[in-house]
């Protein structure tokens, strides 16, 4: 009996110790880098004794789940790695803690991070020195290709004969199209293959992220640089129209059958299962793709090809402290730890994309992985979707109109872009910007 009492006491005591332990909760999307962060964070817990709980939400529900939580002033998360486009809403609606004083106090300088990532992930208004996040995960839309197929002599010579230049990393979107059509429907090793797995997802942001990769490369601007929110002639410029038409052509002539609502995972699946020669996706997935090359598959990677200009769609996120958290001090301690150069180096080593200059400027960085140079190149040319507080309202009409044109084949590219502008004007008017 005595032993039982002691056991009971010990277990009760350990429970109370455990429940009193310091802990915070971090929210992010459920994908490969999140697992790397979980691994990295073990060191933080070992150093500080602060437990970090993770809640990872699948991408299709990520924005819905997190933005609802913020709008409801929820206390579930102490730290949030939110998408770059949320920074405006986070700052304007007071969801994120402004970090300037904390950075000054702890000696964290934004000059230590890549300028493009600070601009994209941390500041609001854009380009100001008001910081609401620490750049956490650099990312951009890029391409992976089947290097093993590209190196086959018979395919190389056939391609050269047909197009007059070498089969290799495409120098522009026209070459990308040539290569995609070259592989479309081709039988390799007894299997039918297709050109490219590109973004066509309708529900969240997929097709917008994909089509803007082309639109930026054609030189599209969202607005008149001298007159904010004046979009006519910019967003629907002839170059922008041409880019959207090109994207539709790429979908119609080069996508595998059934690829009409595809984003990150569907593109990965199409590529890994050997269906396609190219896949469009985020750098975040390349460590996994590179590691999982098997059965003769060798992957090559390259930054978004240029057309009229060199540009790439920005992805990635900053880490912010949620204003409604009761544990802001612990959350800030995590950010302080995460900003350390040695932690940033480990972050990159584990498969996360550090934005710290010490990591990116290291002489060994470009050759540290097969995709590192592409990542450096991309981060110098990134462009992002609107980061306005109303970005969801801006994203949805674009998703619908572009999907309607590219996948559904409805109307013309110009009509789709005009329709988007019409909806955007309404959003900006309601927001008092116009």
């Amino acid at each position, binding site marked *: 009996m005595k032993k039982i009492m002691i056991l009971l006491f010990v277990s009760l005591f350990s429970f109370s110790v455990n429940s009193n332990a310091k802990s915070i909760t971090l929210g992010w999307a459920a994908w490969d880098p999140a697992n790397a962060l979980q691994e990295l964070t073990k060191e933080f817990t070992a150093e500080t004794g602060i437990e970090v709980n993770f809640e990872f939400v699948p991408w299709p529900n990520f924005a*819905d789940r997190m*933005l*609802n939580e913020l*709008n409801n002033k929820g206390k579930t998360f102490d730290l949030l790695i939110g998408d770059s486009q949320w920074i405006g*809403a986070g700052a304007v*609606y*007071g969801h994120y803690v402004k970090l300037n004083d904390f950075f000054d106090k702890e000696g964290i300088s934004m000059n230590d991070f890549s300028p493009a990532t600070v601009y994209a992930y941390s500041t609001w208004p854009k380009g100001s020195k008001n910081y609401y996040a620490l750049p956490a995960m650099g990312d951009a839309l890029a391409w992976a290709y089947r290097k093993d197929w590209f190196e086959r002599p018979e395919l190389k010579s056939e391609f050269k004969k047909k197009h007059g230049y070498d089969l290799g990393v495409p120098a522009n979107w026209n070459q990308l199209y040539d290569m995609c059509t070259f592989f479309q429907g081709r039988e390799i090793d007894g299997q039918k293959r297709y050109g490219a797995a590109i973004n066509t*997802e*309708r*529900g969240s942001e997929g097709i917008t992220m994909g089509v803007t990769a082309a639109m930026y490369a054609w030189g599209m601007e969202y607005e008149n640089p001298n007159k904010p929110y004046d979009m006519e002639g910019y967003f629907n410029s002839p170059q922008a129209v041409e880019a959207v038409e090109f994207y539709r052509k790429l979908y119609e002539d080069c996508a*595998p*059958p*059934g*690829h*009409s*609502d595809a984003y990150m995972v569907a593109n990965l699946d199409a590529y890994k299962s050997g*269906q396609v020669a190219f896949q469009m996706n985020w750098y975040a997935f390349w460590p996994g793709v590179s590691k999982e090359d098997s059965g003769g598959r060798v992957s090559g990677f390259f930054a978004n090809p240029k057309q009229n200009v060199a540009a790439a769609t920005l992805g990635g996120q900053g880490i912010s402290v949620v204003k409604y958290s009761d544990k802001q001090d612990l959350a800030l301690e995590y950010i302080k730890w995460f900003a350390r150069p040695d932690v940033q180096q480990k972050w990159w080593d584990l498969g996360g994309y550090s934005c710290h200059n010490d990591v990116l400027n290291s002489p060994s960085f470009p050759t540290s992985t097969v995709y590192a140079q592409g990542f450096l190149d991309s981060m110098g040319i990134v462009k992002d979707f609107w980061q306005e507080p109303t970005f*969801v*309202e801006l994203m*949805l009409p674009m998703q*619908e109109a572009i*999907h*309607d*044109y590219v*996948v*559904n*084949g*409805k109307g013309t590219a110009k009509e789709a872009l005009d329709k988007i502008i019409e909806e955007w004007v309404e959003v900006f008017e*309601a927001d008092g910007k116009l």
Partner: protein
Amino acid sequence: MSVKKKFKGLSDKAVGWLFIGPTVLLLLAINIYPLVYAIKMSFTNFYANKIGREPQFVGLKNYIKVLNKEAIWEKMQVTASFMFWTLLLQAIIGLGLALLLNRKFKGNELLTTLIVLPMMLSPAVVGVFWTYLYNPQVGLFNYVVNFFYDLGSFDMIGSSTLAPWAIVIVDTWMWTPFTMLICLAGLRSVPNYLYEAAEVDRASKWQQFIYITLPSVLPFLLLALLFRGIENFKMFDMVVELTSGGPGSATELASINLKREAFEKWKTGYSSAFAVILFVTIFGFGNVYVKVMNKIKER
């Protein structure tokens, strides 16, 4: 005074109120109050995500905007077409299956259980696994179609012509058993002596069906279609999982659009007006339908 005595003094009416009181309060709190609140919001420019911004009264502006928006009418057309085809197919197939299962044969019970299985599944799960069945490369649906008639590669979800049929097929597959069950209940309530009398009068099987079976089962069928009509008017989960409303907006039903306006774009005032319009529409149609149904019953 004991509690027992106290209750003894209550009138029948008071006891009645005591029983229904909690339910009425619950209804007021979770149905009537939100409805009144939504109607109030529909006259404002309220955005639920714009913290600290006071909603302003805008009169009928939201209603005019909804009714004048071409895209809304497109969504209503998509919804109407979806409802028409699903109800028609479910009525015909459901009644047919009920007539089949009303006969006594070996394996009748097992067959009934198997037919009823789809409606026991979660609509979201159904939506997800039909995306695999519709896959143009490995989908079973495409394989079966090609087995009987070689169409080559076709994409049910990615084609604007086929996608509306894709959702009609799935809804029909899932909910025909419901119509069948209600019709079966109707068929089993038809007294046998009517058929016996018809046999005596030398009525053919077709005449028996037209003059006995159909009139008896029609009120049940109409009731089933009323339930299915209301459900399909607010259909959401299955279609979102299956097509996300795409390609483009080819399968974006009114309910999906309403959700996007209300909880993704956060246009609370505008979407409240849209919701009120949808409510009035379904309430109006429902009432007319019930009146017609009662007239049929009275015959």
